[in-house]
Structure formats: structure tokens, C-alpha cells
């Protein structure tokens, strides 16, 4: 949770220091726009450098896409939730997986105890995907897949299930998160060491460009880096350095920049100061376009357009008076719309306690509809563009993001900066500074350190963990193991191992193993054997 720090004299604001360390002046004037050239620095929407938006008409043509976190316990429950959200106008799914699946553990692994189906859907084999996606029009509904270390396995599963249900591969659209470096900074769902993890991402990018052209193979997540404590400048700088790491890896395989960079998208965070966030997104669009054109010589418009999912972050929400989070969520949605997002995914008001209940998820979805239909956010593109304050702040944010990118590049780029713990340390220190500012009251969080309301146990309905789901999941896993052709499983896993060792693209081999009903745990074990496991650097 955070925002700007305020130095006050009584009620009078003496100084405002944004999270990114920028001091805000009381008044901005045309003087502040002196250095800004409209054509060079802003351009019309849909034109380089895309500061004002990546499309000429933005929300006039189509509103933003909405996505809510879904994916519960069993594949059957998840399927029901998918259909419920689609029936209420949701246009894309966002599938959450339980922690064992994200860490490549089968549901009957001892390490998975107590976690099966808890924070998302448990997936052991293709059978689970067949249940979860039954009756979903995979050619019109795209899916965000919140999975990273085993994204290659889950993407193979998505392909196989779509083929099985008769959807052509050039029609389906998956957005696996597939950003392992950010897992090493925050969120923690890593398995393999840095270098082979990057290689697996390279495999998914290379493969999906050919086999599933509508797929967005990587969603680079500043979101989780910021949730871990990074300020907005660090969020974008580290996300960009992560993207650059993947880009340079794929370029080294011989692909051209325009072959794939337009398929990369960003998942970014919204909480804190409204103006700082809007300026952050506008600066990010401009800096991305410039970087991709200047460094890599990209020619196509598509390659230069910064695509994002900008969603309200859990770190902005409070345990205290959870209903206030409905209001915060609405402001975060407003920021997202004012920033020209492609997709909006909002946290639900109960997320400080639990994964969203159906009612809370529906309120978030309706928040987005209210903005689009009642508040005029679709009327004109980049309505804050040209504001003395916003344009000045956009330029300052861009300069600060560039400076932090240079810091990372000076120590050898993001792979080195994560291996050494530099980024983890910077982010943790920033989290601690923010928390201290909340404690000393210079950073106000309503209901937490100011306007505190004494209350009884907050009246939040919790999403209860269902232990029966575990039995069902394990029973299905065992049935799959019993009924599949084990010779084909062994053969496809051996082929996978050979491909991994030989440095071949593992995707076609994963597809074969998935078709044979090899389990997530079995395929992960092959990779662990070949690649080893990640060791966290100490940051203290």
C-alpha cells in the first residue's frame, strides 16, 4: 500500500514527494511544456511514439477488455466460474492455478499438502484442461494463464485441448504470464535456474510465433515487482530490462525483431497517486516505442506499440474496512481507463483476506462497466493529454525510468541483476521505506493510519478451502495414471529429456507428452533433472 509522502504544516501541504521521488510543484504552466514537442514527444494517438495511446481511436472503437481472476479448486468449479463470468459480459478469462501446479508438483506430491486447489485450479494432466475448457468458445474467448515456471507445459496443454475441441490453432489466443525473472524478484513461483528458465521462455516465443500466431507468449509483469514494493519508476524500468533480456535471447536465435516483439505484452500495477500512475503508463508507451525502434531497428508499427493489462493492485487495498476497497478499486479502474489500457483486471475488495468471492468479483466487473457506460471514459482519447502537469510528469518519469534501466545495464542486465540479488534488494528496501512512511504518518492510508474506525471482525465472506476437492483431484490423477498408455508416456518423456539436453525447442516434445497424459509433475521432473533448480541469492 502506498502513495505520495506529504510534508505538512497543520493542514497546509508544504511538500509532496511522489513514490518515485519526484517533488510536485503547486502550479504547472506552459513553461513546463517548453521542452516538449508535440510531434516528436506525443504524436497523435496511434502514431509514434504512442504516448497518447497505441490506436487512433482507442475506446471509441472498442472498450477495454475486462478480466477477473478466476480459477478455483477443481477444474469443474473453474469451468462453472468461467461460464458465470462470460454470461455477465466478461470477454477474456484469467485462469489462476494452484501453487503446486505453478511449482510443477502433482496433486499427490507430499510438498503439495494443504495447497491443492487453494488459490486456483489444480492441473495435473490434460484431463483437467478437458474439464475446465469444456463448452468454452476458445476461438473467441482468450485466456490469460497465470503460470510462469511451467508455462511451456501449460501452453502445450492449451494447444492440445483446443485441437481436441476442434478450434484451429490460428484462432486461439492464450496469454501465459511466462515471465520468470519477475518471479525471482517477487511472487516466488520459480523452479529452474535463471539461464534455462530464460531459454524455456525463448522456446515458447519461438514456437508460438509459428504454431499459435494469436498467442501472446509472454506477459512481462511489472505488476508483481511493484506489489513487492517497487516504486512506479522501478516497476517500469525492471519490466523493460526483463523484456530486453527475453528479446536479446530470442534475437540470438536468429528471429527478427518484427517477428515477435509485437506479441510481447505487459502486465502492470495500479495503486497510489493517480497522476503518477497515469504519467507512468504514458511514459512507458513512449520509452518502449523509442527503445524498440532505436536499439533494435524495429520497423513495424505493431512492434513499437506498448500493449498492457493495467489492473488495480492488491497492495493498495487494506484489511481495515474492506468495503473502502470497492472505492479504491473504482479509482484504480479510472486510472486504467485514463491511461489508455488494453485490458483491465481489477482486484476485488476482499483480496486482502481471500481470493475473490463471486460477489466481490462481480462488483469489480461492474465497476469497469460503469466507467465505460456511464462516466464518459470512452468519449475521447487520452483526455489528460496536454495537461501541463501530466505532460511534465510524463517526461520526468521517462527520464527516471531510463536512469534506472542504465543502473541495471551497468551491472550486466536483468539476468545478472536478479542472480546477484540487486533487484530483490532494491525492491525490498523500497518496501521497507514505504512501510516506515506509513508508520510515521507521512504516507496516509485511510483507515490504517488516519481516520481509523474501530470495528469488529470485518464482515468479509471468505472463500473457503474445500478439502473434498483434494480427494477428487487425486482420484482423477490416479485414474489418469492407471488408464493411460504408460509406454507412450515413458517414450515421450525420454524424447523430452533428449530435446532439453540437446538445446532443441522443447515445445513440440511437450505437446506429445501432454497428448500422452504425462503429468505436470513428470514433465517438470525431466526439466529439473536436466536444468537443476534455482537458488535464491541472500539480500540481507
Amino acid at each position, binding site marked *: 500500500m502506498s502513495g505520495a509522502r506529504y510534508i505538512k504544516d497543520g493542514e497546509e501541504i508544504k511538500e509532496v514527494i511522489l513514490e518515485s521521488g519526484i517533488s510536485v510543484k503547486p502550479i504547472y504552466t506552459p513553461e513546463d511544456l517548453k521542452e516538449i514537442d508535440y510531434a516528436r514527444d506525443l504524436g497523435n494517438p496511434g502514431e509514434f511514439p504512442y504516448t497518447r495511446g497505441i490506436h487512433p481511436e482507442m475506446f471509441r472503437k472498442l472498450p477495454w477488455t475486462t478480466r477477473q481472476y478466476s480459477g478455483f479448486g477443481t477444474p469443474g468449479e473453474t469451468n462453472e466460474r468461467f461460464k458465470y463470468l462470460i454470461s455477465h459480459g466478461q470477454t477474456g478469462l484469467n485462469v489462476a492455478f494452484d501453487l503446486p501446479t505453478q511449482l510443477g508438483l502433482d496433486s499427490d506430491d507430499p*510438498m503439495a499438502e494443504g*495447497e491443492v486447489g487453494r488459490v486456483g485450479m489444480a492441473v495435473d494432466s490434460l484431463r483437467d484442461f478437458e474439464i475446465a475448457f469444456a463448452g468454452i468458445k476458445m476461438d473467441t474467448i482468450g485466456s490469460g494463464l497465470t503460470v510462469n515456471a511451467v508455462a511451456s507445459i501449460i501452453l502445450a496443454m492449451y494447444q492440445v485441448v483446443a485441437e481436441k475441441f476442434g478450434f484451429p490453432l490460428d484462432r486461439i489466443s492464450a496469454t501465459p504470464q511466462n515471465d520468470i525473472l519477475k518471479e525471482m524478484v517477487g511472487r*516466488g513461483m520459480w523452479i529452474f535456474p535463471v539461464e534455462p528458465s530464460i531459454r524455456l521462455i525463448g522456446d515458447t516465443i519461438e514456437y508460438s510465433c509459428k504454431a499459435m500466431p494469436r498467442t501472446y507468449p509472454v506477459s512481462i509483469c511489472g505488476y508483481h515487482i511493484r506489489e513487492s514494493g517497487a516504486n512506479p519508476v522501478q516497476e517500469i524500468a525492471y519490466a523493460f530490462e526483463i523484456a530486453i533480456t527475453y528479446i536479446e535471447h530470442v534475437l540470438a536465435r536468429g528471429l527478427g525483431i518484427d517477428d515477435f516483439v509485437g506479441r510481447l505484452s505487459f502486465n502492470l500495477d495500479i495503486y497510489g497517486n493517480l497522476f503518477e500512475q497515469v504519467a507512468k503508463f504514458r511514459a512507458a508507451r513512449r520509452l518502449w516505442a523509442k527503445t524498440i525502434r532505436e536499439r533494435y531497428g524495429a520497423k513495424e508499427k505493431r512492434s513499437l506499440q506498448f500493449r498492457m493489462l493495467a489492473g488495480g493492485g492488491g497492495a493498495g487495498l487494506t484489511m481495515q474496512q474492506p468495503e473502502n476497497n470497492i472505492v479504491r478499486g473504482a479509482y484504480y479502474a479510472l486510472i486504467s481507463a485514463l491511461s489508455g489500457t488494453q485490458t483491465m483486471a481489477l482486484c476485488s475488495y476482499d483480496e*486482502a483476506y*481471500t481470493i475473490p468471492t463471486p460477489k466481490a468479483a462481480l462488483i469489480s466487473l461492474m465497476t469497469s462497466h460503469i466507467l465505460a457506460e456511464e462516466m464518459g471514459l470512452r468519449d475521447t482519447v487520452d483526455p489528460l493529454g496536454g495537461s501541463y502537469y501530466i505532460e511534465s510528469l510524463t517526461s520526468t518519469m521517462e527520464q527516471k525510468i531510463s536512469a534506472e534501466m542504465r543502473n541495471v545495464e551497468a551491472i550486466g542486465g536483468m539476468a545478472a541483476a536478479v542472480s546477484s540479488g540487486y533487484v530483490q534488494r532494491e525492491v*525490498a528496501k523500497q518496501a521497507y521505506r514505504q512501510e516506515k512512511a506509513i508508520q510515521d504518518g507521512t504516507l496516509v492510508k485511510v483507515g490504517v493510519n488516519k481516520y481509523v474506525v474501530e470495528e469488529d*471482525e470485518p464482515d468479509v465472506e471468505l472463500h473457503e478451502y474445500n478439502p473434498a476437492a483434494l480427494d477428487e483431484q487425486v482420484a482423477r490423477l490416479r485414474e489418469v495414471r492407471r488408464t493411460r498408455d504408460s509406454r507412450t508416456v515413458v517414450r515421450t518423456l525420454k524424447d523430452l529429456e533428449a530435446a532439453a539436453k540437446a538445446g532443441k525447442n522443447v515445445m513440440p516434445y511437450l505437446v506429445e507428452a501432454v497428448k500422452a497424459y504425462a503429468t505436470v509433475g513428470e514433465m517438470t521432473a525431466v526439466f529439473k533433472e536436466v536444468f537443476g533448480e534455482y537458488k*535464491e541469492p*541472500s539480500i*540481507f
Partner: protein
Amino acid sequence: MNEHKRVRVLIAKPGLDGHDRGAKVISYLLRDAGMDVIYTGLHKTVDQIVEAALQEDVDVIGLSILSGAHLPITEKLMAKLRHAGLGDIIVTVGGVIPRRDLARLKSLGVKAVFPGGTSFEEITHFFQKEVPALRQAL
């Protein structure tokens, strides 16, 4: 306990949950408050935490749990600590902990619970004042 010895704290992340912003912030806080702090890192089993506590000779284990599995994990840790002859290690729990579970955690032998939103002051008070008192009482 030798009262001049600095309090040694193991901040531990049991289970698979990977959110450790809180664990890291508290590690910095306790270090600034004069403790020796060791952080286990992610994805630790209860057995690995007990082993680390033994190796590092800590006075306190601070569990950080956000997954909702705080009750079974804590119960298991307390039993394994007793079994390993480390029953005198003080255990605290922080994270996403509903208030209705506080009494249950205390009854398992947890000395302090710090749900999300607990003030730094309350946490440092516990470690600077109550931990030495508890150690002396042993």
C-alpha cells in the same frame, strides 16, 4: 539466556506461497531494532525450518504465512520443535491471519500473532521487551 546476547530471529516462509514482501520488511525492521535476523527464503518445509532453527541457534521463529494454511502449518511446526527438543524456541506468526484464528494459534503455543496491518511499534515492542522476558522465564 545471556542477557547481553542479541536476540536471534529466524524469519521463515513455510509452504509454497511465494509472497515475501512482508517477511522481508519485517526482517529489515527487526535488524534495525537490534536483532540478528536470518531469512529462510521461500518454499521451505516445516522440517527445513526446524533444521535451520537448530543450525542457527535462534531464540525466535517468525512464521510468515499468507496462504490461509496457518493453522495446520503452525500445529506441525510446534510438534516438530518439541520432538527436536527445541520446545523453548518462541514462535510468532504473521501474515494474512483472520482474527477468529488468533485464539487457536495461541492455544497451539504461539506467543504472538501479527496479522497484516500490525504496527511496527507493536512488533518491535514484542521482540525488544517480551522476548527477553520470556527467555528469562525459561
